[in-house]
């Protein structure tokens, strides 16, 4: 529909997307969940003040039975709430850092493959396929046992197995956008490849990539939880997955010690997914038209 531009204030696509995002109730709910989780992780441990690693109470204490341990204790009497509060930062930190590693690798490889095409594309995509064929968890498990598990190894390990979907998405976006006339126009104006890739195509490819990155954060958190559940994480860190794993054999005696950390993981990932979905909707041009 044709309109006189004079009546419209200059709004950037970013500002418009933000307006849509803020009007999305599900995304707002996700944002609130995340805010609570992050806040609880930041100030929770010092406020609650119970050592998550120490036996502080009787084992197998159900929730609400003793006000000192509102979520109960596990099989050796460690406080479940303290574990949840202190496991938050580790889980979130590992999840986001690993996602960052994955997204950086993915975007770089995908951008180069999609933009240049031809032989570069073939080689990079075979490489990506190779990583997709390896079951990520098995591969990460092997890495974690060959190298001593530490925070850094965990992050790099997860990042290394998480990047292929991002690379595929980035490649598809770049392939689509490199044939747009405005990219051709840049070339006709004498822009160099570097400018076209990073300054022209990448900003336009960002919306789906940002939404995908949010999902990668969620998957990375789940992945870290899975590794820790199997007992393959950094043994010095009490993460939510580790709590579930260590209480696995006592699930019928203290189900709460498994239940609550799982809820914590679930809510965190849900929050991230809701925000990711909201970003996707807000930045998808198909929703913006009309």
């Amino acid at each position, binding site marked *: 529909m*044709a309109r006189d*531009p004079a009546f419209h204030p200059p709004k950037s696509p970013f500002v418009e997307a933000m307006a849509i995002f803020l009007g999305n109730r599900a995304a707002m709910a996700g944002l609130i969940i995340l805010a609570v989780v992050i806040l609880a992780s930041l100030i929770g441990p010092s406020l609650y003040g119970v050592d998550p690693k120490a036996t502080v109470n009787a084992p197998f204490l159900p929730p609400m039975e003793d006000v000192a341990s509102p979520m109960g204790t596990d099989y050796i009497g460690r406080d479940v709430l303290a574990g949840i509060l202190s496991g938050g930062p580790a889980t979130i930190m590992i999840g986001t850092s690993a996602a960052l590693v994955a997204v950086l690798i993915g975007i770089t490889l995908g951008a180069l493959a999609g933009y240049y095409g031809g032989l570069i594309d073939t080689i990079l995509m075979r490489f990506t396929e190779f990583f997709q064929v390896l079951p990520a968890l098995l591969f990460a498990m092997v890495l974690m046992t060959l190298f001593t598990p530490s925070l850094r190894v965990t992050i790099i390990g997860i990042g290394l197995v998480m990047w292929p979907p991002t690379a595929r998405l980035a490649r598809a976006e770049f392939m689509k956008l490199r044939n747009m*006339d*405005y990219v051709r126009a*840049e070339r*006709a*104006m*004498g822009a160099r490849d570097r400018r076209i890739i990073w300054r022209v195509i990448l900003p336009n490819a960002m919306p789906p990539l940002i939404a995908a990155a949010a999902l990668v954060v969620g998957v990375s958190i789940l992945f870290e939880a899975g590794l820790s559940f199997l007992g393959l994480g950094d043994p010095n860190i009490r993460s939510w997955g580790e709590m579930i794993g260590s209480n696995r054999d006592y699930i019928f005696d203290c189900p709460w010690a498994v239940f609550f950390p799982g809820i914590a993981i679930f809510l965190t990932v849900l929050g991230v997914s809701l925000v990711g979905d909201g970003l996707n909707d807000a930045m998808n041009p198909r929703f913006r038209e009309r």
Partner: protein
Amino acid sequence: MTDGDAILRVRDLTVHFDTGTRDAEGKPRVVHAVDGVSFDIRRGSTLGIIGESGCGKSTTALAAMRLVAGARGRIDLGGVDLGGLEGEALRRQRHRFQIIFQDPYSSLNPRQRVGSLIRTPMALQDQGTPETRDRRVDELLDLVGLRPETRHLFPHQFSGGQRQRIGIARALATNPDLIVCDEPVSALDVAIQAQILNLMKDLQAELGLTYLFISHDMGVIGYMCHEVAVMYLGVFVETGDTRAILAAPAHPYTRALLSAIPRVDPVNRSLMAATRLSGDPPSPVNPAPGCRFAARCPHAVDRCRTERPALRPVTLGGMERSVACHFAGEI
């Protein structure tokens, strides 16, 4: 179509794409998108290329812009052979030839404000200072009929016609010697199309612009172009003065094309009486020897299927043009 005053001389422009597949006999399937095309454009004039979809007219335009990989041939723009340049040397020449695209929606970066869009070619070619560029942006917006205040807006805040004006302003920014127009009005409604065509003609008269104008619409070509080349399956079949060709088309394809245009005429319903071409244009993959049009030509004889006709001067209706047909002037 040779002329001492030509700003652009193109010789034997050829673009072949390998499809990467093979035909039944194991020969590689190669698309002959453009097959040895030559033309000149006089400074300050317009050459039109007309043809149906897939005939190679847009590929010719993009190849002349050096935007197609694998193009061969001489592209002499004011004494510099663009066809022989690569990399930085080619980049340095780009301020001299610019392009206007068909789709006003996809040809402007949605994340750039209008001012920045028009400034980009000058910045990339190191023309002027930031201040003089800003002044030039306002000047250009005014020139194409937009208010300078609109430089703060984003492309999606404009209508299709207004976006095409922005595209024209961007193409004019570096004062190019040649502007390639790839179906610049095909995506617009007729009323807006007329506004844009008039603007382009006014700009040509005022600034002495040279256009290479691609279109599938003979009416638009007739209005815009001093000379025209009719293209069919990668080759020119007839070139010359637009009025000469419109008045007395010599190539059977040009005739069929002209007679198939629906005139606004409720009484003389020529369309229904016109000679009809049968079928669609054949595929440009590994085309058969001989005349490209032979398969659909009502006059084709054996010679047409074996021997490829070259463009040669023919006089018809008292007017001269070049025609690639063995029997031009006789049929």
